[in-house]
């Protein structure tokens, strides 16, 4: 028998609702302050840090840049980025969690003094599942896929390809050594997301990085002009 004074409160709210709300408020706040936040997602070892280092070196004369590196533990990425590029970077530890949510992102922004910056990269935890579920509050979401991972990755982890604006296909210099079809890969991304821009690069050799720089300059321009 149920207890007499038990009553039911109807909630009907998504488990992600509080994070989604926090994320959109954060996005709006940063927009008003003119800070462009970029969320970079990928599996471990796809070359997120190397890609960021190359990109930052090509953009740092134009914008004041900051980097927030999220990892379950260690500060190796933050040290590396800061050492090679000279831009401000901090390490966010997620205390065992496999993703960042909007609250953790905002804590990180406060720690890096974001108001002095134009462009902030958030290097999310290397993982293709959870970062896609939790909106971090960024203006641009990027997924990096590297050639050795295979051209069928978008079929296995659909959500992360659905949720991004840009897919960077990295390690193009290793193409001769792997069974990887760029056309097939693009087709698989398109199946998940018709609107995503796809840019193949090699963060190691620099191939394709001019296109990436153009994409960023254009995106930031649009962000600043957009009311």
């Amino acid at each position, binding site marked *: 028998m149920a207890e007499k004074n038990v009553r039911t409160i*109807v*909630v009907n709210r998504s488990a*992600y609702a509080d994070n989604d709300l926090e994320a959109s408020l954060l996005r709006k706040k940063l927009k008003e302050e003119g800070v462009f936040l970029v969320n970079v997602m990928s599996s471990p070892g796809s070359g997120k840090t190397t890609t960021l280092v190359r990109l930052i070196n090509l953009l740092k004369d134009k914008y004041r840049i900051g980097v927030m590196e999220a990892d379950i533990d260690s500060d190796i990425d933050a040290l590396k980025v800061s050492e090679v590029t000279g831009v401000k970077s901090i390490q966010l530890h997620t205390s065992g969690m496999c993703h960042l949510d909007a609250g953790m992102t905002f804590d990180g922004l406060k720690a890096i003094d974001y108001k002095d910056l134009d462009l902030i990269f958030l290097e999310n935890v290397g993982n293709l599942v959870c970062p896609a579920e939790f909106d971090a509050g960024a203006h641009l979401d990027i997924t990096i896929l590297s050639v050795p991972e295979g051209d069928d990755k978008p079929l296995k982890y659909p959500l992360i390809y659905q949720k991004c604006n840009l897919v960077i296909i990295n390690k193009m210099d290793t193409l001769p050594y792997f069974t990887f079809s760029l056309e097939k890969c693009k087709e698989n991304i398109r199946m998940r997301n018709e609107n995503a821009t796809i840019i193949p690069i090699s963060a190691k050799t620099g191939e394709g990085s001019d296109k990436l720089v153009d994409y960023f300059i254009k995106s930031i321009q649009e962000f600043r002009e957009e009311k």
Partner: protein
Amino acid sequence: MHELGIVFHVIKQAEEVAEANKVQKVCKLTLEVGQVSGIELDYFRECFDWAIKKSKFMQECKLEIIVIEGITYCRTCKETYKTVEHGRICPFCGSKDTYLVVGDKVIIKDLEVI
């Protein structure tokens, strides 16, 4: 590990509702979990039972999970089918032009409180 993150957000929101409604405690939480939401139910329950120990109103809260079947719609032949059995490709006409109608959400349905 992603179950834990979702559990934290579920508990946080349920606690807010409990607080706003001035309840003594939450006895049961009913959650609708889509079949293709990517949640492992056993793992989710374990995380939930661990995480409520740190809560204010949910120390003894039971978790009831209602699984919502994944259903996909085919734009080509206008049929619907079970997502888990057939995936993205329509079993009736072989088309890839399909989209998920229901089954990817995680919804806090209601709370039983005293």
